[in-house]
């Protein structure tokens, strides 16, 4: 297989990892909303924590994007 083709396939496979980040972020905000609807008065205090969790989960998906970009452009 040509190196160039293998690189592109690898970049595509690496991007699958971003789907995992999507699932993670969706989980965090979904669960936050579920909790917020049960106890709306406690929700605003926890919104920051929800954002921190979303940022941490998203960061891991960004890693796979960076791997894909490294494969494509180096």
């Amino acid at each position, binding site marked *: 297989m040509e190196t160039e083709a293998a690189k592109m396939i690898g970049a595509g496979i690496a991007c699958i990892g971003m789907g995992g980040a999507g699932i993670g972020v969706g989980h965090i905000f979904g669960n936050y909303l579920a909790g917020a609807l049960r106890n709306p008065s406690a929700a605003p205090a926890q919104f*920051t924590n929800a*954002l*921190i969790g979303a*940022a*941490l989960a*998203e*960061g*891991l998906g*960004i*890693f796979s*994007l*960076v791997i894909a*970009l490294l494969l494509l*452009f180096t």
Partner: protein
Amino acid sequence: MANDPIKQFQIKELAGPVNIGGLEISFTNSALFMAVAVGIVTIFLLVAAGRGALVPGRVQGVGEVWYEFIHNMVKNVLGPEGKPFFPLVFSLFSFVLAANMLGMFPYFFTVTSQVVVTASLAIFVVGLVIVVGIAKHGLGWFKLFVPHGVPVVILPFISLIEIISFLSRPVSLGLRLFGNMLAGHIVLKVFAGFVVSLAGYGAVGVVGAIAPLFMAIALTALEFLVSFLQAFVFAILTCVYLNDALHTHH
């Protein structure tokens, strides 16, 4: 490719190549927009705080909301010991926010889409955490890596995992900001490219180009949200990491 989505991140020299001992220190478009970001924040806050009216006007109101937002965040996460770090967190937030927002203008350069900028900020933050932690608690700070109430058998593994997770912080902190801004701007450019190439196919293409045009508009709105959110996330993660340096009870 005619509409290369990566070309917007190219660094250009604005004032001829300047070399000192093989080290290139030319004034580039990246440096220009960093200076502009700092200038905008400084001038805006000077104007906002200049009058100091008892009943704030519009500009002063924005300045006060901005200040209070970060002040409350630092107070909630770090407690009263975090007061000396408020200027740092405020500067980081303001710089990242201004750089992200400047990047949203067409033809403007996004400073935070350069990994060297975000990595420098992230390494500085984590280095500061180590320095402050050791200065405040001495060598006892390293108890951060040895959690309480863990059986001795698995303690080495837990410590190893804690150390690895600590060392991955500068990587994740820097790459998160970089990746978000880079990915957002590439997506914007790709959809803008769809509009241009579809419109090249005559009347049918022009009608078809309406869909990616609306997508590009929606994505621009999303990018403004991401710009703010990433600046906020960078600032609050700085606070959370500094919290480890100030309060070591694990």
